[in-house]
């Protein structure tokens, strides 16, 4: 909300309090001033134009003015023609800086001296008008401009949702007064003094269908108003707060809204179908031409103000064009009501229309405010627009605001704050904030919050009130420390345990990424991995409408992005959740959120490069699993979406499938605009963490091992893993390790066959093995392989 410093001065004595001081005090009280525009007019003087002549030589149209500055006359050149002789104008003399930042200098324009500048409203930050010079309605030549227009500062403040009272200057001024410990100059207006028609003759009839949605409706009739522009001071304040002046009646309703936080609406009484107001829900197919010029479709969950025939306003949101006040208006119906916050919020969202009024009603205004606001508006209308205010108001108030008393054990203040606040100071603070404090016999305080503070209901709320005025800076920082008799032993967080994986990935040349979990659902569908996808019902856009079921599409996209930006070799990974809707569960069940580890890497162009990259990636994955101190994974030939049909393995841990590894399917890479091969894996990482064991030291071997190589020629279809398992089985206890290290096709190997080379390490824990012993085992292995896999052997 925009707060005018100058306006606050109506209520609090700001003598010696600069705008910066005020902003600081307010921020420390909880009204956060986020930015401030200072409009310092003290350097600007008032001048009277004596003479105006067009510039004879200038190419652009310019006017030369002789301006009376009280004690002398100065020649000033301006580009606008509206400062005709006799006009009172703001003048910035050479050497001054105008509020918009422009520095004024002595100039010579095409042979004519120009000493100073005539200012527009925009240059003085008093409005948007930059076409003409600001013409003043009063003032004495030579006097400072501040004699007619005060210097100003506009604060942009964030009002928390519990303080609708601070959405008006009066409420903010009360905070400031409490913070400065100064009295309020004036608070709620006294009762208006309206005169008028004989009572009861043409009173407005008000009926409210649902008091839960409208707890109060005040309708006041004001007759014989003269609609015209509102006075300059009012227009200036409205503009300062970002509200466009329209006419005196509408301006007054807006002015009171900005002052008291109570939204008001003025209807043209003659344009209503009879002086009856019906607060009801909209009916099927009803529409309203709203003040913003748009026809709004209304639905039955929206509250409207209707006359005998039709809706004339959306309650608490916007009025209707057909009953609006115009220059022809003579009699008005002034509405000051209280509407239910959630209902106004819902309607305003449904209409996509947030107004000054709805922003206030949404936060639940106190119904007591309605009368104060109506009275203030009525007296301003009587004063500024003439008109006679009907003595009697329709005031339908089915849900009167009840006072809420709060009992406070004053020691709670010290207990919660952690510092000692003297009781007198605490009591004085509450009183400054308009709370009534009654000290009871047992020492407890019976506290009655002011009528505009619906947010204070529990003792802790009162502690906050005391604390924020007392000053939280005065509370010394401490660390909690008791003699605990109970504790939870420390254990590393899951994420810290996963750092072991991050170390392996970093050492293998992979960089960690964090990618958005919300992805385009259409993409998951195109990749055929959308079966368990969770769809957002109110997405921001279709680029973020679905929770990802796999990390791989995000990594593929990241690879594309980096390639597009000139990085051809990409190795990246991510550790994050995937989200899988539970099959067979009722709608509305929480999905599974398995934590995944996924990686991808560029893998060259050729089939051989791709194969080698898969094998390297397997080592990376094995390294991650080993780093977690989990047993090694096994790999089974598999096929799945996203992966190359001939180059994909299921990753198995203790018989449980963790995920897949392999080369990406060429259509997947092509679809992502990547030419060349890409290898990837994605696994569930929690089972790996669960399988993690503390490594137990093994005794070092005491006898030397014997190494032998074995090249096995077999049919293409026999997998290295199968041969390896067979070798282990055939070799018996003496075989310590066997590992395939080469695959060969070519001379000496028949078509349809391959040669797989293994390194075998034999060792006995009891003795040094002899060649003869090892030879014997080797020949048993060979015989076995010959028999089982029709293997032959290369020498």
């Amino acid at each position, binding site marked *: 909300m925009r707060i005018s410093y100058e306006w606050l001065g109506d209520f609090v004595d700001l003598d010696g309090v600069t705008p910066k001081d005020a902003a600081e005090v307010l921020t420390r009280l909880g009204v*956060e001033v986020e930015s401030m525009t200072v409009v310092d007019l003290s350097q600007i003087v008032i001048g009277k134009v004596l003479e105006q002549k067009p510039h004879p030589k200038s190419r652009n149209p310019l006017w030369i003015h002789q301006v009376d500055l009280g004690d002398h006359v100065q020649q000033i050149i301006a580009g606008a023609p509206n400062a005709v002789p006799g006009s009172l104008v703001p003048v910035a003399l050479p050497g001054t800086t105008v509020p918009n930042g422009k520095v004024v200098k002595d100039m010579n324009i095409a042979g004519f001296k120009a000493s100073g500048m005539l200012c527009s409203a925009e240059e003085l930050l008093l409005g948007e008008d930059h076409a003409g010079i600001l013409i003043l309605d009063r003032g004495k030549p030579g006097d400072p401009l501040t004699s007619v227009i005060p210097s100003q500062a506009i604060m942009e403040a964030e009002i928390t949702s519990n303080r609708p009272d601070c959405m008006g200057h009066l409420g903010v001024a009360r905070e400031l007064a409490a913070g400065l410990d100064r009295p309020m100059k004036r608070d709620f207006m006294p009762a208006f003094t309206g005169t008028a028609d004989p009572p009861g003759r043409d009173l407005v009839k008000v009926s409210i269908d649902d008091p839960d949605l409208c707890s109060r409706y005040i309708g006041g009739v004001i007759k014989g108003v003269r609609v015209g522009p509102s006075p300059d001071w009012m227009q200036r304040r409205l503009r300062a707060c970002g509200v466009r002046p329209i006419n005196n009646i509408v301006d007054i309703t807006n002015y009171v809204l900005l002052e008291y936080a109570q939204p008001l609406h003025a209807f043209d009484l003659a344009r209503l179908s009879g002086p009856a107001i019906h607060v009801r829900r909209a009916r099927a197919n009803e529409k309203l031409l709203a003040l913003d010029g748009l026809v709004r479709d209304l639905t039955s969950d929206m509250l409207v103000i209707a006359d005998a025939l039709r809706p004339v306003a959306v309650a608490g949101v916007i009025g209707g064009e057909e009953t609006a006040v115009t220059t022809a208006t003579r009699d008005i119906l002034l509405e000051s009501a209280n509407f239910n916050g959630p209902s106004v919020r819902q309607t305003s969202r449904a209409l996509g229309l947030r107004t000054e009024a709805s922003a206030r009603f949404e936060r639940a205004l106190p119904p007591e405010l309605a009368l104060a606001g109506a009275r203030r508006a009525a007296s301003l209308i009587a004063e500024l627009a003439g008109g006679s205010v009907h003595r009697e108001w329709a005031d339908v108030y089915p849900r009167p605001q009840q006072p809420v008393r709060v009992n406070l054990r004053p020691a709670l203040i010290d207990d919660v704050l952690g510092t000692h606040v003297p009781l007198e100071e605490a009591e004085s603070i509450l009183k400054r904030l308009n709370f009534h404090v009654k000290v009871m016999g047992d020492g407890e305080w019976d506290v009655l919050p002011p009528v505009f503070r619906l947010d204070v209901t529990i003792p802790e709320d009162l502690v906050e009130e005391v604390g924020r005025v007392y000053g939280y800076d005065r509370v010394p920082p401490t*660390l909690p420390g008791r003699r605990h008799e109970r504790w939870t032993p420390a254990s590393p967080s899951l994420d810290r345990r996963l750092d072991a994986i991050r170390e392996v990935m970093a050492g293998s040349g992979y960089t960690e990424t964090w990618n958005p979990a919300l992805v385009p659902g259409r993409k998951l569908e195109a990749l055929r991995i959308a079966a368990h996808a969770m769809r957002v019902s109110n997405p921001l856009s279709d680029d973020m409408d679905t929770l990802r079921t796999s990390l791989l599409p995000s990594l593929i996209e990241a690879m594309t992005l980096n390639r597009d930006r000139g990085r051809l070799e990409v190795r990246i990974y991510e550790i994050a959740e995937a989200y899988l809707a539970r099959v067979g569960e009722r709608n509305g069940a929480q999905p599974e959120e398995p934590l995944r580890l996924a990686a991808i890497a560029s893998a060259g162009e050729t089939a051989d490069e791709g194969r080698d990259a898969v094998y390297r990636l397997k080592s990376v994955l094995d390294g991650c699993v080993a780093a977690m101190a989990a047993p090694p994974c096994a790999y089974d030939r598999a096929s799945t979406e996203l992966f190359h049909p001939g180059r994909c393995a299921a990753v198995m841990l203790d018989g449980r499938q963790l995920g897949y590894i392999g080369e990406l399917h060429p259509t997947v890479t092509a679809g992502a605009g990547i030419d060349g091969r890409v290898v990837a894996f994605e696994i569930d990482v929690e089972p790996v963490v669960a399988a993690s064991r503390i490594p137990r030291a093994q005794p070092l071997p005491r006898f030397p091992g014997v190494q032998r190589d074995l090249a096995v020629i077999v049919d293409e279809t026999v997998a290295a893993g199968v041969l390896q398992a067979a070798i282990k089985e055939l070799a018996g206890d003496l075989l310590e390790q066997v590992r395939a290290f080469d695959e060969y096709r070519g001379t000496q190997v028949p078509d349809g066959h391959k040669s797989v080379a293994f390194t075998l390490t034999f060792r006995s824990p009891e003795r040094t093995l002899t060649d003869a012993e090892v030879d014997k085992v080797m020949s048993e292995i060979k015989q076995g392989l010959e028999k089982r896999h029709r293997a032959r052997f290369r020498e």
Partner: protein
Amino acid sequence: MNDPSALTADAVEAIGKSQTSAELERIEVEYLGRKSGHVSKLLEGIGRLSADERAVLGKAVNEAKRMIEGALAARRSQLEATRLADLAETEAIDVTFPGRPLERGQIHVLTQVRRQIETVLESLGYQVELGPEVETEWFNFEALNIAAGHPAREMWDSFYFGPGLLLRAHTSPVQIHAMQRIKEPPIYIITPGRCYRRDAPEATRLPYFSQVEGLAVDKGLTVGDMKGTLLFMIQSLYGRERKVRVRPSFFPFTEPSFEFDVSCGICGGMGCKSCRHKGWLEVGGCGMVHPQVLRNGGIDPSQWNGYAWGFGIERMAMLKHDVDDMRLFYESDLRFLEQF
């Protein structure tokens, strides 16, 4: 050549002239070689000599051998000393030549910052608690004292999956889960994790982000304890010259509620461009846990009280590393990620 002393003199002279260890090797073989070395040859025909002559010759040959060996060793160590002394010239490399690149990946800056935050708070005895990202409305709102229609719900515009189910807007639901699970205070936990709000992506705001919240439930906790904890955390992360201030604010789940600011690291609180002349940078929210929230977590507020705080990991990383656009964290551009 059969005079041992002349032979020795020749050998010593040759050794003295030698310049390399290879030369010495050759000389050694020439004189001391087992079969055809000059010294061995002196003994040829020793069988024809008398016992006395044999003893004399043997002694002379041994003496020659010892002398030559001594000269060889001396010359060797001399040459080695020279070689070592000359290393600076003979084996100099261009140390300004760039190191050979390693294939080394980076850990994401947000992981690094999250790790730092966890480490600091773990040192105060806080433990990490995790919870689901797709939450029920009750845990995300009602349990935190944010009833349906509450104006404060505006602060957490959320993504829904139909009625009652949504992407959590903060990690606060984990606090409720944790209280319900742990049951008996003291509870000192932190809850890092991803959160979601329906905000269009821009430089300082994203619809997805990461938070860390902290919760302490114990006997007699105070606003002062909360301030001290925040100050400890901030000074540990950013340096002990940093200050923390708490400003009154409003959250339905804390009473009193605050926002907490950290003094600007660039101007030290004097006000500069990077803190928009405020001297302070907004970091997060905090407050004393609302009694109703404790009740919703199954904790008796007449026995226990607590404080809680929360902030964005991205925000902390932006402050620490001068990142000006939050989107960079989630874009996966290696040129950005490799800077940390």
